[in-house]
């Protein structure tokens, strides 16, 4: 009886520790699955798949159901050939949005959620998107902190006198502060990593610069995530809390983690649609980025068949 009591207490302790996994599995927006991660060895996916990564400023300046996507990265992963491609889509890309009309592609998420963003990307880039991952500001910060920070090589000083001070919902979301991310290899926590990938004011490349930095950060996150095992999922899952949404459920994370080590910087092809693929201009009274589809589509179809 006493032994049974101790076993029960131990199981209770383990259960409390793994509670976030149970909660995440239950609350997941997973299509067709809410299962817990399998604890037996897994086989990674073998077929190529395409994921649309979406990032939004979701501070109190914006209505929760009216968010734009400041970051859109189309990612193609081929487990067989061990090749991957990341294609950053400029947030101001001026495109026809299904059922809406012409607009910046960043507004597609506002109009139709993740499916709206997927539809806009699929119809314009002529690709098929299998899954999506959406992340908010605090989601990214928490994710990186839960991973223990990330290492990035800051290519040049990132200086910004008007960086939004909007992570804390209690403050004025229109307030701002100064950012100086100094160059060189460095270890960044979530807040500083977000500064690195979100700042754009002080760089001649503007949004293109942060697109490149966002891809760089993704590689760093991937490097950290490749060390994850099932025991890490409880703390990682607690970072989600609605700040990360995905069609990929926890049950499919383990197979994906199992192939993460197959990919490193050398076999991940990175594309940012800088000029001449795009050109800056004005449309409907807004500063926008015009696509040159004659150049973009052949490039896209090389890696996104």
């Amino acid at each position: 009886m006493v032994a049974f009591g101790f076993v029960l207490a131990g199981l209770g302790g383990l259960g409390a520790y793994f509670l976030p996994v149970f909660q995440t599995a239950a609350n997941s927006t997973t299509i067709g699955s809410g299962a817990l991660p399998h604890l037996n060895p897994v086989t990674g996916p073998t077929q190529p798949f395409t994921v649309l990564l979406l990032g939004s400023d979701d501070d109190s300046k914006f209505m929760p159901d009216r968010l734009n996507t400041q970051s859109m990265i189309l990612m193609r992963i081929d487990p067989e050939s061990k090749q991957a491609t990341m294609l950053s889509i400029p947030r101001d890309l001026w495109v026809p949005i299904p059922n809406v009309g012409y607009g910046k592609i960043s507004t597609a998420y506002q109009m139709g959620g993740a499916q709206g963003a997927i539809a806009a990307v699929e119809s314009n880039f002529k690709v098929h998107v299998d899954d999506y991952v959406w992340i908010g500001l605090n989601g990214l910060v928490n994710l990186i902190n839960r991973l223990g920070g990330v290492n990035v090589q800051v290519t040049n000083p990132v200086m910004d006198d008007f960086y939004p001070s909007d992570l804390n919902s209690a403050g004025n979301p229109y307030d701002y502060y100064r950012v100086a991310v100094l160059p060189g290899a460095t270890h960044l926590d979530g807040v500083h990593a977000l500064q690195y990938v979100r700042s754009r004011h002080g760089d001649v490349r503007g949004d293109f610069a942060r697109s490149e930095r966002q891809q760089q950060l993704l590689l760093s996150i991937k490097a950290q995530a490749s060390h994850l095992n099932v025991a890490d999922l409880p703390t990682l899952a607690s970072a989600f809390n609605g700040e990360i949404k995905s069609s990929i459920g926890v049950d499919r994370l383990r197979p994906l983690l199992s192939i993460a080590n197959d990919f490193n910087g050398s076999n991940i092809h990175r594309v940012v649609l800088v000029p001449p693929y795009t050109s800056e201009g004005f449309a409907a009274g807004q500063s926008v980025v015009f696509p040159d589809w004659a150049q973009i589509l052949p490039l896209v179809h090389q890696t996104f068949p």
Partner: protein
Amino acid sequence: MRWAIGAALVVAMLAFGLGVYHTAGVLKAGGKVVHRPNEVSAPPLPGTMYVVQGGAIFRFQHGSFTQVTAEDGWMQPAARPGDNQLVAVRRQTNSSDLFLLTTGGKQVVQLTRNSRPGPAEGNHWSFYPRFSADGATLFYDYDPKSGFNNYQVDLAIYASPSNPDSRGSLQWTHPNDYTGGDVYPVPLRGGGLIYVKYSIDDSFKVHSQIWLQKRAGTSGQALTQPELGCTQPALSPDESLIAMVCSGGSNQTAELDVATFDPTTLTLGSPATLVSGQLVASPVFSPDGKTIAYLAPSTPGGQFQLWTAGSSGPASVRNITTDLGLDSTSPPVWIGG
């Protein structure tokens, strides 16, 4: 009596459950625990070194670390030649200032006053302080504001007399617009300056080059090619070698290279790689010039640790610390004594 035993067992069971919960967390954390430097010992190195972690400066001597400042935004210390003083940056949210400190961490004088009331953009940064070899001039980074665009914040290198009572700073370098600026001044004994200049080409690629300027305000000359992506130069005490971190244009690698330098002709030899396969940052030479200390993670994604390598290959890489979280933007200060 029975009741008391039962209650004790219930308490013991609850404590066991709590222990299991915490053990699960500790096991998950694995080797990711970061210690403060003064909690660990390390293989001794000759001389004295200063490193930064968590906004505090630590002295490393005889294999142990001593905290010399509070954890209060301190970074980038540098030695003042000829006396027992350091210059260091104290960084706050919107500004940073330079201070002279005793080697024990006591503030001697505040050299800059960059904090301003009012809007954030009215503040300034000062980074990378470095004294000239004779200690008479202090070089540092500062952000002069553009009169035309508030969004332009590029660091430029300034020089001022190291006497804090004197006035008058001289802008030495003029950075390329919207690149982030010129950084990392390394004064030469003969009066010139080595630093890092950034440029962004027409295809939006960033290049960092080791740059040399003989006098303030001149355009200077590149010591390394743009495609090498070299940064963070360190000069050997006899000025015959320059160690630097080169990326080859990638933002995923950072190797330690070393090249011969001729201070009379101001020319740099071809860089040779001392350390590759690590994310190297902030190299410095030992006082005798035979060893280079640098910062790099021990494991991919890990925090930055202290390493050493022989300055004349083949490299004899040595891991000095394993469980610290050193500030990789603050090069170690390595002095004799």
